[in-house]
């Protein structure tokens, strides 16, 4: 048997890792990212002549848990047609037996990278509101993301915000039928075996982590998710993660002045309410969380925080500063005029 040098081992590994796109309409361009489920490559769709992102499992087989999860992820994406959620184009199996799906190639930066270039707190909060929009839409379709964190949000060159990586998503009971329909309409290349490997609706309902396995990201997953209490998870679990993302955005705000810091008690209260240990203490829906952020941006009181008189006055002043200064200027002018006339 031939002795394989370390160099040969490296070449064999490198050669074996690349997905075999023979027989597909895609041409490999390069690796983009690597995650727990597989590797994301940039590829060119030679039929439509556009760049796509191709997510592929590392290990072949359409029957394993990972293959099932990848196909479920594609189905979830097919179900969620929203400007804030990356659209899936195709799903199937490669010649080397690996399951893959393609999606829109998102050019831009991850939120954690993007945020360092955005100094303005209101701009950051507007990005956060767009994340909330996408998540609220998913919740309306009975889909929980379960892995919301800055690394899973992309911000495009035109300011578009996309929530990525739905590999841990859970479809709640009432969404079974649409999930199936959505997947079938999007599965243009999916083979029959792959479909059966993904399981039927009941499998989806139980969720990938239906047996209490803890999946998620520490610091961003809710306490009930960290405990593996899968049956307790609902929209409020994602709200916890959103609260953690919000806190991340606030902490990263190096431009905050002293007066901002005082007002940010409202935002701290919003974060605290969103990330309450008890789900009952959190916002009941993403819309309510987003509403509080919108109110903050509009200079209104947030529902999560009872303001003191001083805070109210300061907020009132900040909101109507222009008119207050205008009236003050007018009064000063009148006063000066009176003094001048009396002389």
């Amino acid at each position, binding site marked *: *048997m031939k*002795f394989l040098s370390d160099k040969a081992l490296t070449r064999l*590994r490198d050669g*074996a890792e690349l997905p075999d796109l023979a027989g597909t309409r895609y041409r490999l361009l390069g690796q983009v990212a*690597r995650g*727990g489920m597989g590797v994301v490559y940039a590829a060119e769709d030679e039929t439509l002549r556009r760049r796509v992102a191709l997510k592929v499992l*590392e*290990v072949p087989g359409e029957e*394993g848990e990972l293959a099932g999860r990848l196909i479920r992820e594609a189905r979830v994406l097919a179900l969620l047609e929203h400007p804030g959620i990356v659209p899936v184009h195709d799903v199937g199996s490669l010649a*080397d037996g690996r399951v893959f799906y393609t999606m829109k190639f998102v050019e831009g930066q991850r939120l954690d990278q993007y945020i360092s270039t955005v100094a303005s707190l209101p701009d950051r909060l507007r990005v956060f509101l767009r994340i909330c929009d996408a998540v609220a839409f998913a919740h309306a379709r009975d889909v929980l993301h379960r892995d919301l964190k800055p690394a899973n949000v992309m911000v495009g060159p035109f300011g578009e915000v996309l929530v990525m990586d739905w590999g841990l998503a859970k479809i709640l009971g009432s969404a079974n039928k649409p999930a199936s329909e959505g997947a079938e309409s999007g599965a243009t290349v999916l083979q029959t075996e792959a479909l059966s490997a993904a399981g039927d609706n009941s499998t989806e309902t139980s969720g990938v982590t239906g047996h209490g396995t803890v999946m998620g990201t520490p610091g961003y997953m809710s306490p009930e998710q960290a405990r593996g209490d899968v049956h307790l998870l609902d929209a409020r679990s994602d709200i916890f993660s959103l609260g953690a993302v919000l806190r991340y955005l606030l902490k990263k705000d190096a431009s905050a002045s002293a007066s901002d810091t005082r007002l940010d008690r409202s935002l701290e209260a919003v974060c605290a309410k969103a990330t309450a240990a008890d789900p009952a203490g959190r916002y009941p829906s993403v819309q309510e969380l987003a509403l509080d952020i919108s109110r903050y941006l509009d200079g209104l009181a947030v529902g999560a925080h009872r303001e003191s008189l001083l805070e109210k006055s300061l907020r009132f002043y900040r909101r109507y500063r222009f008119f207050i200064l205008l009236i003050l200027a007018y009064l000063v002018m009148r006063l000066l005029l009176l003094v001048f006339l009396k002389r």
Partner: protein
Amino acid sequence: MTQDNATAGGGRFPPTRWSVIEAAQSPDGAERKRALETLCAAYWKPVYKYVRLRWNRSAPDAQDLTQGFFAEMLERELLNRFDAAKSRLRTYLRICVDSFVMNEDKAARRQKRGGNVQHLALDFAGVEEELSVATLDPASLASPESLEEYFEKEWVRSLFGLAVEDLRRRCLENDRERTFHLFEAYDLEDDDQVSYERLAGHFGIAVTDVTNALAWARREFRKIALERLREICGSEDEFQREAKAAFGWEAPQ
């Protein structure tokens, strides 16, 4: 058992999901023997090198210990005690080797084995050559992590070596001898000057033919290596993890 049988696995590929662990627990003696052959083919080189370097044993001692280890594995049905849920087979075997060497009463056991145990026909001289090529300092294997790393690397080398031999056989059977030569020249040789263009010129074919041949060979190699790997894993989960380790795929973030 001969080395040819061991390394080639009899030239057969079992039906999917045949596992050495299940076979080792089979009531059928022939099936158990086949399991040991498969396991021996994948692990004897890493075990031998490990004993030589980790335990600093001379070549004759290490040969004896390697033979003894696999004989004991069959005698004491060590694989029956392996629990795929608790550890990887690779780690379990390494610990078994450590335990075996530590407990070895050289004189007594060698005497015992000399009479009763059938020796495996293993190419120890070839491995000695490999060891002489490697410039590894035994002192660098001091920590448990480095030991595990070394054993894993040699295990991957052994696994890939078997897969390359299978690929060579498959190419010959399918009249793709040239494909294997291309694969050998580009992926296995340490020639930094090699290129698709040079290979195309050397073999008198188009560059696209080289590209296609190498793509086919790499796909087959990958498939064969994963089939081999699946055989020596105790569970689907272990297979997934070992595939990541063998191919250098990073662990999930």
